[in-house]
C-alpha cells in the first residue's frame, strides 16, 4: 500500500486526538482520556514541547471508510537513562484497524528509532499491557526485550491526592 510517514504538525492534532480515542477504546479505557486536541496543540507545538509526533498518511483514493487520510501515528519524547544516557520513549503507536497488516506500524516504529539514533539515543523504550498478546508478539519479533519480565522493574505512579500530599511535604 502507498503511504508516507512525516513529522506531525499543529493541524494534525485533530486527527491525533481522534486516533488517541480509538487506541484507548482498543485498550478498553476510553473514559480515561482527559486531554483534548487543544492540549495536544499546546503541549506538542510550543517552544519546549512535551512530545514529538509522526503521522502515517495515505493518498486520497485510499482514504478510510469515514474519509480519513491520516491513518496512523506515533508520539515520542526524549528521556534519560542514568546508566546509558540519552534515550527515546515511544508513548503511542497506532494504525487504524482497516490499514493494518501493510507495514505501516513497523514503518512508524522504525522512523522513531531512526530519529532517536540521530539524536544520540541508545535505547527505544515503551510499555505494553501484558494481556496485549498481538502487540507483545509484534515487538518481541522485532528484537526488543521485556525489561519487566527479565529484570523485575515495576512501573509505579503517584497521582491525585497522593501527588498533592507529596508536593506539600505532608507524608
Amino acid at each position, binding site marked *: 500500500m502507498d503511504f508516507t*510517514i512525516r513529522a506531525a504538525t499543529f493541524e494534525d492534532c485533530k486527527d491525533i486526538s481522534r486516533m*488517541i480515542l480509538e*487506541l484507548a477504546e482498543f485498550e478498553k479505557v476510553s473514559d*480515561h*482520556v*482527559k*486531554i483534548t486536541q487543544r*492540549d495536544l496543540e499546546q*503541549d506538542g507545538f510550543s517552544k519546549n514541547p*512535551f512530545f514529538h509526533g509522526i503521522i502515517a498518511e495515505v493518498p486520497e483514493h485510499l482514504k478510510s471508510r469515514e474519509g480519513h487520510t491520516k491513518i496512523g501515528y506515533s*508520539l515520542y*519524547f*526524549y*528521556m*534519560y*537513562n*542514568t*546508566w*546509558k*544516557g*540519552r534515550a527515546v*520513549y515511544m*508513548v503511542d503507536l497506532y494504525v487504524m484497524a482497516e490499514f493494518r497488516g501493510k507495514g505501516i506500524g*513497523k*514503518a512508524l*516504529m*522504525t*522512523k522513531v*528509532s*531512526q530519529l532517536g*539514533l540521530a539524536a544520540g539515543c*541508545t*535505547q*527505544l523504550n*515503551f510499555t505494553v*499491557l*501484558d*494481556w496485549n498478546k498481538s502487540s507483545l508478539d509484534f515487538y518481541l519479533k*522485532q*528484537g*526488543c*526485550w*521485556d*525489561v*519487566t519480565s527479565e529484570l523485575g*522493574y*515495576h*512501573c*509505579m*505512579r*503517584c*497521582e491525585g*491526592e*497522593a*501527588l498533592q*500530599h*507529596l*508536593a*506539600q511535604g505532608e*507524608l
Partner: protein
Amino acid sequence: MRFTISAAKPEDCKDIERMIMELAVYENMPDQVKISHKELERDGFGPNPFYHCLVAEVPEEHKSKDGNTTVGYVIFFYTYSTWKGRTVYMEDLYVMPEFRGNGIGKALLGAVAKEAKDQLCSRLQFSVLDWNKPSLDFYMAKGAEDLTAKEGWHFLRFHGMALDNLAQEAP
C-alpha cells in the same frame, strides 16, 4: 540533620556520577553504567536538557566518612501521557546510606512532586525493582500504585543491534 535541596549545577556532575554508581551497586548492576560526568554535563544543562537534577547537600561539619557534602540526588524529566497530558518521570532517587533516616529522600521526592505540580503535571511516574522491598514500602506508604502488579504494564526496550536494525528499515 540540616540539609539543603537545590538544582544541580554542572560542577555537581562528578558527585552525581559517584552516586549513580553507588545506586547501581545497590541494584546489583554496576557493570551496566556506561556514562560518566561528561555525558551528564553535556545532556543536563543547556536550552533543551534531557533531564533535570536536584541535589541534597549537608554542611561541612556533617560531611560523609569519605568527605562528601553532596549526599543525595534525584534525576527526573518531563514526559507525556496521551490520556492525561503532562507527566514527570523520576529516573533516580538516591541518598547515601549513612544519611538515610533524616528525611532527605522524602524531601527530594517532595521537591520533584512540587515541580510536577508547578508544571501542571498530573502524574509522577518511576520504576522500582520487584525485590527492592524497602523502596516499594517507602513509595506505597506515600500513595504510589504499582501499575505492573495492578494493570499488567511491562517496560519493553530496543537497544544495541536490535535498535540499529530497526532504524535501518525506516522509510
